[in-house]
C-alpha cells in the first residue's frame, strides 16, 4: 500500500478529513459502548459467580475502550454527555450485533456474540495500528492489550458449550440468529466516507478485506466445533470473495437500527433524563493525561 501522509492535529483537519475521522471513531466508540451496555445485563445472572465476574470484567474493559474513543471525539468541542447521554438514538453507528437483546438465561448468545465481536474488533484494531491519524494510532496498543483475554474467554466457552449436543444446539440457534448481524460489523457508515477513510489511510485495510479476514477465521473455528455456518441464514449470494453480502434490514452503521436499540437507549439514559441532568460527572482523568 502506498505510503500515506500523516493527518494534522484535530483542529487543522479539512472538513472532509474530519468527517472521515469522526465516522471511524463513531464506529469504534458506539460498538464498544453498546456491546458493553448489553453485556452488563448478565451481571449477577451469568451461570456461575466466576463466569459472572469474568464477563462483567470484559464489559468494563469495553466501556474503558469506548471512553478512549469518545474522548477523541471531544477534540471538536462536544462534551461526553452530548456524545452519550444526549445524542439522539437515531444517530448512533454501532453494529446491530451489539444492540440485540438477550433471551433470559440464553448464555450461548453472549458467549458466541462476544466471540464474533472480539475477533472482528481485533482485526479492526490491527488495521488502525498504522493509522495516518496519530491520535487514533496512539491508543490502539493499549486496547489491543486487553483483547486477547476476551477472545480466549469466548473461544474457551464455545469449545465447552459445543461438547454436548444440547448446548451445541443452543449455540447453533444463537449463530443462526446473530451471524447476519455480525456481518454488519463490516458494513459501511456511508460508502463515500468509508472510501475516504481508506484513501486517507485512517485505517490500513478496507472493510471488505477485513470482513474476508474475519470470515476466514470464524467460519473454520465454528465448523471445527460442529457448528454449521451454512444454516446461519447466510444470504443466498454469500461468497466470501464478493463485496455485496446481503445484510439484515438494519445495519446500525448507517444509523438504521432494530427496535431493541431504542428500548436499550431509553433504559440507559433513563436516570440521566429523570434527574434532569445536563452534564455527566467525570471521575477519571482525561486519557491524554494518563
Amino acid at each position: 500500500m502506498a505510503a500515506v501522509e500523516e493527518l494534522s492535529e484535530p483542529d487543522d483537519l479539512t472538513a472532509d478529513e474530519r468527517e472521515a475521522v469522526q465516522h471511524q471513531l463513531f464506529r469504534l466508540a458506539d460498538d464498544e459502548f453498546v456491546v458493553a451496555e448489553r453485556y452488563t445485563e448478565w451481571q449477577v445472572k451469568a451461570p456461575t459467580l466466576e463466569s459472572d465476574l469474568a464477563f462483567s470484567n470484559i464489559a468494563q474493559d469495553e466501556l474503558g475502550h469506548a471512553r478512549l474513543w469518545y474522548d477523541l471525539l471531544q477534540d471538536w468541542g462536544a462534551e461526553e454527555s452530548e456524545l452519550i447521554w444526549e445524542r439522539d438514538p437515531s444517530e448512533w453507528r454501532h453494529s446491530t450485533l451489539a444492540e440485540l437483546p438477550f433471551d433470559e438465561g440464553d448464555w450461548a448468545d453472549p458467549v458466541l456474540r462476544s466471540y464474533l465481536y472480539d475477533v472482528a474488533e481485533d482485526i479492526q484494531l490491527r488495521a488502525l495500528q498504522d493509522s495516518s491519524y496519530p491520535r487514533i494510532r496512539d491508543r490502539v496498543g493499549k486496547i489491543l492489550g486487553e483483547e486477547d483475554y476476551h477472545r480466549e474467554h469466548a473461544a474457551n466457552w464455545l469449545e465447552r458449550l459445543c461438547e454436548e449436543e444440547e448446548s451445541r444446539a443452543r449455540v447453533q440457534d444463537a449463530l443462526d440468529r446473530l451471524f447476519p448481524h455480525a456481518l454488519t460489523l463490516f458494513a459501511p457508515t456511508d460508502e463515500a466516507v468509508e472510501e475516504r477513510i481508506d484513501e486517507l489511510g485512517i485505517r490500513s485495510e478496507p472493510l471488505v478485506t477485513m470482513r474476508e479476514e474475519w470470515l476466514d477465521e470464524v467460519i473454520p473455528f465454528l465448523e471445527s466445533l460442529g457448528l454449521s455456518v451454512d444454516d446461519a441464514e447466510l444470504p443466498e449470494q454469500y461468497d466470501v470473495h464478493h463485496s455485496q453480502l446481503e445484510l439484515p434490514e438494519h445495519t446500525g452503521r448507517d444509523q438504521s437500527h432494530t427496535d431493541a436499540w431504542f428500548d436499550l437507549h431509553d433504559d440507559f439514559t433513563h436516570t440521566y433524563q429523570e434527574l434532569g441532568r445536563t452534564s455527566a460527572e467525570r471521575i477519571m482523568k482525561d486519557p491524554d493525561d494518563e
Partner: protein
Amino acid sequence: MIWEVFRQEKSGDYHKHCGNVHAPDREMALLFAEVQHGRRKPTNSLWVTPQKEIGEVDTEDTAFGGTTDKSYRWAMTYNFEAAASEVEESESEQASAERERKAQIEGGS
C-alpha cells in the same frame, strides 16, 4: 470442581494462597483466576491446583514441633562473637515462633 489459587506478586516471590475458583478444568480455572485474583492486586503469576489434590495435616492430627522443649535446636550456641545480622534475625524469629507455639499448646490444653 474447586481450584485453589496461589498468587505471586513479583518474580522470585513465593506463590501465596489467595482463595479459590469454581471451574470445570484447568484452563477455565486459570481464566477465572486471572479476573478474580489477579485483577486488583499486583500479580506476576498465578497457580491453580485442584482442591482435592491438596494434602493436609492439622493440629487435630499432630502436635507440630512436638510437645517437649526443643530449644536446643536453636542456632544460639555459637555466639562467641557478634553474629551476622541474618543470624540475629533468624534467632529472634525462632524465639518468637517458639513463644507462640508454647502459648498455643498451653492455651489448647
